[in-house]
């Protein structure tokens, strides 16, 4: 029998302990099983504008595409990934354009931008797309994997092999991004796909979490919480307890198997025929 996965979602965003405004933003569409999180940048209140606009644009574009297949595709489609994943990437290309145009038409907002990480689940298939250093993690069978590669200077240097992960963690340059939504007229979007399994946790988060909380702490929090919402709240509390130097946002998804297996069907059949 095909397992039917139900996605439980929990989320929270918080100012943290140091910042004066929250430039993070997230949105969840339960019926579409679409989850989007963004961390804005640009000083004053402009980071907030950028992240809200980016998240809203992704949501709107994906909803539109569900209603009409004729919804235009922005950016290049890749034959390597599914139509869904390409759609998610298209949404981020459009968000880039909107943030860039808004910033360009208002000198006060010049230079504003945002990171974005988005997940879209269709039956068992998970599509991920991202730009910047907000991350997606998959916790499966006790092992946690980072699905996204940060678009930050230190992370790219680690990947090229000119910096060790330890040097990266200690670096002054952690806040330097190599890609962001809305800072240039076009942007490269990274995508990934996974088959979700019953019991999987997916975490989307801003760097305010991962700079404050270690991977093992994150994993144990996910595994020991009684619901996705509780996990989201405990993760934010942990980030704040450890210093909370930045805004912190998390979306926690838990894939739960719905009982539509062979024996459930048998019981149902017996009840109805008896």
């Amino acid at each position: 029998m095909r397992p039917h996965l139900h996605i439980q979602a929990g989320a929270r965003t918080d100012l943290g302990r140091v910042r004066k405004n929250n430039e993070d933003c997230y949105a969840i569409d339960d019926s579409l099983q679409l989850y989007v999180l963004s961390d804005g940048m640009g000083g004053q209140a402009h980071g907030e504008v950028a992240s809200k606009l980016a998240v809203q644009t992704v949501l709107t574009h994906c909803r539109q595409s569900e209603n009409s297949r004729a919804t235009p595709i922005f950016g290049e489609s890749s034959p390597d990934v599914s139509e869904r994943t390409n759609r998610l990437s298209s949404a981020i290309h459009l968000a880039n354009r909107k943030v860039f145009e808004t910033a360009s038409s208002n000198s006060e907002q010049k230079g504003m931008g945002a990171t974005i990480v988005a997940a879209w689940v269709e039956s068992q298939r998970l599509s991920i797309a991202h730009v910047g250093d907000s991350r997606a993690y998959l916790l499966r069978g006790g092992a946690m994997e980072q699905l996204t590669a940060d678009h930050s200077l230190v992370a790219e240097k680690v990947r090229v092999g000119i910096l060790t992960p330890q040097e990266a963690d200690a670096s002054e340059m952690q806040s330097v991004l190599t890609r962001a939504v809305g800072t240039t007229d076009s942007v490269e979007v990274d995508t990934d796909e996974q088959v979700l399994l019953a019991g999987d946790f997916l975490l989307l988060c801003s760097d305010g979490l991962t700079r404050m909380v270690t991977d093992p702490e994150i994993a144990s929090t996910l595994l020991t919480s009684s619901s996705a919402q509780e996990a989201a709240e405990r993760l934010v509390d942990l980030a704040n307890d450890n210093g909370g130097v930045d805004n912190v946002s998390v979306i926690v998804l838990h894939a739960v198997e719905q009982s539509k297996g062979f024996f459930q069907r048998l019981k149902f059949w017996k009840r109805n025929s008896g």
Partner: protein
Amino acid sequence: MSRLVLKFEGAQLKEIPLGTHPVTIGRAPDNDIQIDNLAVSNYHARVYVEAGSLVVEDLNSLNGSFLNDIRVERAMLKDGDAILIGKHEILVDQVHDAALPEDGLRKAPAPRVNETMVLDTHERRKLLDMAAAAGERSQLSPERLLVPTLMVLSGRTDQKEYRIAGKLTVIGHSKMATVRLRGWFTPEVAAQINKHEDGYYLGRGDRVPKINGASIQGLTKLNDGDVIEVGRVRLSFLFRE
């Protein structure tokens, strides 16, 4: 109060107030201004006050310290001077509250400490070139034009051989499976292969697959010639011309 301002590619990274103690600059973590760049020596330079004047002194660094584009051993500093160390610029700021630019157009404020900024395209291009150079050594190099292939060694499948294309390859009974397993009690998704930047990774499905006889722990990178076992099906992972 005077201060030093650390800048990279025009963006402000850090502000260091100038007091009575010397400010040290270098790659080692115990410097007041740490710069993690291989062009910077461990203890590269220092800035201190001597007889009422601010002085920069190079500490026999390999690549030198530059004051307003001139290499210096030791030099007096004044407001507005720029010290260049590696690719980082350190500005001397003795007037703390700078007036707004005269053109009346307020520019976007420079990022403060810890505030996120984006690298300009020039710097990013250099990084991509470096990444491309590194990529030539990796599996996914276009130079090699090798096609990852799964060859069926034993077990019931719908084909004898599969070329892996795309980011996600599913092995199982499911309709979305590339490698369709046959037979009763075959899991919908037995295993999955994900393409990452640096190669192909095998992950579990409803079963935990084996590589060369050992069950995998989390995502595991596949190497040329690896034998994957999923239930009774054995597949060989090969890079083909």
